[in-house]
């Protein structure tokens, strides 16, 4: 394979693998920027994937065709947001430890969804959906030499949605009053409170947005990658998204870069076995490469990532 062929293989695959991570990590960004740690991203993705598949199956059954998949993704956004209330109520209103609450959410998500799958279908996993999101060439753009085949041919619409949302989130977080308030609540909730901002309300919004985005992330994974749902559909992607969030220093563009980096490394680890230069490298090195590279990057040039200051602490009026 020549280099162009390899790139044409690896880059679309990287973008494809990164999309669910990007979406989920953006969700985490809202939550953590508001001061609520979200270890529960994994569970929220599970719920999103579950909703994505179950709704698609149901609507397909009613003959809606590809529309079912899109409706299912919207449903996943809504259900994800609702499910995240569990984390919000626990960690904001009940002042639970945010990490504990996130861990509980992960357990609950897997238990509940698989339980429901058994209840609905009498078995541990769903059928495959028929109306997946498949790859398409972007008209015109895919004909541009070099860039075209790399970025616009054989691509998933969902990847473009993820990238577009990144830009939207960037704008919202850094240029709107909402973003400023969200960040202030995560940095210094008491200060925000004295400025008349309702801290807990902002945090609820942050956590619910994380549920919405992670739900979408899970659904995108389900309808592009796995095609069905079981207890093992989402295994660790949520944690990778969390890593992308930290790696990306809680900045949407950083998150995008980190997720693409993970996607690239993952794509290389699979494709590498068939690239002449890499074929003789034991596959384990390719498999662990994304993780090792991340660590090296963090230790080397990325350096210290500074979390929102008030993260992890419930806000109690008047305490210091």
């Amino acid at each position, binding site marked *: 394979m020549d280099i162009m062929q390899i790139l044409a*293989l690896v880059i679309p*695959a990287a973008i494809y693998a990164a999309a669910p991570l990007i979406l989920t990590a953006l969700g985490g960004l809202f939550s953590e920027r508001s001061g609520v740690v979200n270890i529960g991203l994994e569970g929220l993705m599970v719920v999103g994937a579950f909703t994505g598949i179950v709704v698609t199956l149901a609507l397909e059954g009613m003959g809606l065709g590809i529309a079912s998949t899109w409706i299912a993704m919207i449903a996943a956004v809504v259900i994800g947001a609702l499910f995240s209330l569990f984390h919000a109520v626990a960690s904001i209103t009940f002042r639970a430890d945010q990490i504990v609450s996130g861990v509980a959410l992960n357990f609950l998500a897997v238990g509940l969804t698989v339980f429901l799958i058994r209840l609905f279908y009498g*078995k541990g996993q769903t059928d495959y959906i028929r109306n997946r999101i498949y790859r398409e060439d972007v008209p015109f753009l895919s004909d541009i030499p070099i860039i075209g085949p790399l970025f616009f041919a054989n691509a998933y619409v969902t990847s473009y949605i993820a990238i577009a949302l990144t830009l939207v989130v960037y704008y919202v977080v850094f240029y709107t009053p909402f973003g400023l308030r969200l960040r202030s609540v995560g940095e210094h909730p008491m200060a925000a409170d004295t400025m008349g901002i309702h801290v807990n309300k902002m945090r609820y919004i942050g956590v619910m947005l994380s549920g919405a985005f992670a739900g979408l992330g899970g659904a995108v994974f389900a309808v592009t990658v796995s095609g069905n749902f079981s207890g093992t559909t989402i295994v660790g992607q949520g944690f990778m998204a969390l890593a992308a969030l930290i790696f990306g220093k809680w900045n949407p563009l950083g998150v995008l870069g980190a997720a693409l980096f993970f996607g690239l490394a993952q794509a290389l680890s699979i494709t590498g076995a068939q690239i002449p230069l890499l074929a003789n490298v034991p596959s384990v090195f390719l*498999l662990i490469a994304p993780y090792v590279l991340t660590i090296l990057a963090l230790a080397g040039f990325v350096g210290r990532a500074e979390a929102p200051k008030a993260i992890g602490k419930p806000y109690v009026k008047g305490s210091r």
Partner: protein
Amino acid sequence: AGEEEAPGTEEDPMTEETAPEEEEAVGAEDFTVGMVTDVGGIDDKSFNQSSWEGLVEFGQEFGLEEGTDYRYLQSSDIAEFEPNLRNLVREDVNLVWGIGYLMEDAIRTIAQQVEEAQLAIVDSVVTDEEGTPISNIANITFKEHEGSFLVGVAAGLQTEGNKVGFIGGVEGALIKKFENGFKAGVKAVNPDAEIIVQYAESFNNPDRGAQIANTMYSQGADIIYHAAGDTGNGLFTEAINRARNDENVWAIGVDRDQHEEGEYGDGQSVTLTSMVKRVDTAVYLVSERTMNGDFPGGEILEYGLDDEAVGIAPSTDNMSEEALQAVEKYKAQIQAGDISVPQSDEEYEEYLSSL
């Protein structure tokens, strides 16, 4: 490969060394049978499901009640194999099935501790420390290499770019049988064909499956066979993706007829054919034997082409006439013992040099 008696699913497939067993026939009314699945569960579109179908058919045939007389337990991780098996044994279930070679150790332990238990395992031969089969375990294996040979023949004939691929789940003796049988089949009809092989190192990662298939197709392979469980579903995803963009690519399924998995558009399918493995038949037969007091403990039952227990799927829409004929021809030759299908890498090397 061992010699077999006349084919037919109604008959005992194995008669080599029918060890005389003490136990009496229990009779359908008191007979209980249970199986333990691995993580996949009874709807994994693969051999857990197939086993369960065999058991259901058996139960319905003999008027047993589901849930009490025949039932299954699903393991949610490997640590649960042994407790699940033991649960059934402790309830004095007459025959306890362990589905999959990963249950070997759990079954061995229990069999040695509870000598009166009657156990059976699929896809493995459980031996004691000396290497002799244990007397209260029935070992059910398949000649997957023979079935894989036949789909290999089909692939060898229908490839247009002279390049085909194989995706394995986790590398090991079992999946090697699929790989080598397949490669031998391809080479038998198309000695020039190039075969790309990659293992996904996982049976439940369709994502990897898809990316591996993507790479193989991109390199010019037009037919890919998988023996990778759920990982293989990624192959179908990728093949459909390409077929929808009017590429001429095919996938070959495994274990069951995977025509449906390859469906897209209106009624087309990217599934060229599938290598079926009739675990259900085996489960049915052994359960019946046991009920009749003829538990094949200590035996190694090897199901192959003769028993129609491996072979090519009934859906043949996408196969060329030429390929179908060739498959029949080679099937006869294997059954006749004219071709000995390689299982391991060494056997494959030998086979190649004999071509």
